[in-house]
């Protein structure tokens, strides 16, 4: 677009003026976008550093009023709930993708694709409610646990995994499949030895993207995993704190020493953003590292 740097000669004043106005407007939009974004990042980093100490990672909020304490319980909760959600979503998601690409019947496939498409836009709070309703149907009302949170999050993660896995499976060249079939490999053998390995980098990247999407979710966990001040490592019983809900509750249940609560909330936000970025970075790196040379580009 460098060819556009100069304006053609002999342009009327009105046209020249309009062009100038448009240029100013575009720059203004650029600035209007950059300012809040930079402010957000700077705020989270500077305010988050205040409590970024060892205690934050080793101590829970059990018995803490005012300053001190940490988010160890919430960190463990986030790790466990995210792992559980991944463990639920990956087999279902990848299996669904294999079905869609390799075995799908027209009617069922179209319905599945439609659902996956629409569910990508599912509001997270609705996923939380649906998981709650499902659990009420199975075990009865009032139950809050880390596992319930994981089920809610997997509703959000499954569409992401299905989409990226199916896209990658579709990209596997037909030649490869036909070569394997020609060598006498059965259908599942073709999928297991050719399709899935060739699509693996994309699938792994898709899973990482899915994890990045759910690790910062607050609303569903607020509804079904609840909040607690103590460490709970049991996914199936009792409330389980997670980092996003921790941020929310530090703000909402402030004690007299407000600054202590605010500082903990910002530090938790900084740690959470760090985790999310780690996963999106890992998604990109793994996608590049695991790519078989024949499929690159």
């Amino acid at each position, binding site marked *: 677009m460098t060819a556009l740097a100069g304006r053609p000669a002999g342009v009327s004043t009105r046209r020249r003026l309009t062009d100038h106005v448009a240029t100013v407007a*575009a720059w203004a939009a650029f600035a209007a976008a950059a300012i809040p974004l930079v402010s957000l990042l700077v705020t989270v980093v500077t305010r988050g550093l205040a409590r970024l100490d060892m205690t934050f990672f080793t101590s829970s909020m059990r018995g803490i009023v005012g300053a001190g304490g940490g988010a160890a319980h919430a960190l463990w909760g986030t790790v466990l709930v995210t792992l559980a959600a991944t463990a639920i979503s990956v087999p279902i998601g990848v299996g669904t993708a294999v079905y869609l690409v390799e075995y799908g019947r027209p009617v069922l496939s179209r319905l599945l694709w439609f659902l996956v498409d629409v569910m990508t836009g599912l509001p997270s709070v*609705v996923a939380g409610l649906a998981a709650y309703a499902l659990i009420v149907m199975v075990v009865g009302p009032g139950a809050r646990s880390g596992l319930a949170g994981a089920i809610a999050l997997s509703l959000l993660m499954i569409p992401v995994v299905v989409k990226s896995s199916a896209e990658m499976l579709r990209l596997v060249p037909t030649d490869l499949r036909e070569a394997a079939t020609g060598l006498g490999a059965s259908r599942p053998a073709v999928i297991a030895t050719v399709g899935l390995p060739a699509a693996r980098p994309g699938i792994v990247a898709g899973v990482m993207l899915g994890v990045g999407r759910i690790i910062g979710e607050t609303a569903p966990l607020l509804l079904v995993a609840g909040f607690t001040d103590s460490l709970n490592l049991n996914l199936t019983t009792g409330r389980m704190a997670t980092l996003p809900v921790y941020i929310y509750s530090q703000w909402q249940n402030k004690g007299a020493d407000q600054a202590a609560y605010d500082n903990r909330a910002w530090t938790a936000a900084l740690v959470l953003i760090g985790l999310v970025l780690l996963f999106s970075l890992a998604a990109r790196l793994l996608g590049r590292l695991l790519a078989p040379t024949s499929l690159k580009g």
Partner: protein
Amino acid sequence: MKPADTLLTPRPARERVRDASARSAVTVAGLIGLVALAGVAVFLGVEGWPGLTARTGLPLQAANFWALAWPLAFGSFWAAVLGLGLAVPVAIGVALAQTWYVPRWAGRFLGATFDILAAIPSVVYGLWGLMIIAPRLAPVYAWLGAHLSWCPLFAGPPSASGRTILTAALVLAVMVLPVMAALCREVFAQTPRTTVEAALALGATRWEVIRLAVWPTGKAGVVSGAMLGFGRAVGETMVTAMVISPAPFLVGFGLINSTNPNTIAAFIAQTFPESHGVEVATLLALGLVLFVITFVVNVVARRIVRATGGRV
């Protein structure tokens, strides 16, 4: 398509069993996926039904479900419309600036910042809006209330805390901006190079190239991108839950008032932890309403995309 099966010698039974079990395992996974996704509406409908028909025991002592749902649905729409109204022009401007105006390094810098911001959890946006943005906007609202109160939007009384629906909409706009700007940029990039060059050859200025060549091809993509952004904003929970200072049953367009309409998603998040019985059922039914709204918005957006041949 079973070439190997029919042309060659029969496979050993062990292998055929393995084939069949692999096939059924994958089919079962597909069915679980189907049930899980389609189940959302079913679970909510079954458990939420008592809330839809209840006359007593609803949250806020509402007379019936719709008396509760209507003001909240209004709030969700109003906040999302405001947020999109702020985000769409900026997103279009940013996308055009990135491709046409700004030096390449600046465009790339903003792109990288957008990538980071798209990954930031909504609860952090909520915290930022509440603690950083709202206090700074409070004096602005006071000024608007003092000087523009003839306009119904700024009739006031202005909020002293700055926790208004306009603040929430601003934060929502910042939140959907990265995704929408990236989308617009992708759509504008699809303008045929020859059309651009033809316009330039006819002596068009940069703005005229955009208006005559870039905008007509990208319009539909921008519309569907805006609708997807709307779907996201209308269901966004934490930002509205944390930023807006709500009043029950309020329906009003005031932007800077100390009392604001609440949104469906925020109301669910605020009320659910301390709810029992009919209240829970009502909230599940509210979730179903929100689900239907986002479902319709998403389906329509995707229809537009498909009708125009674009991909989003």
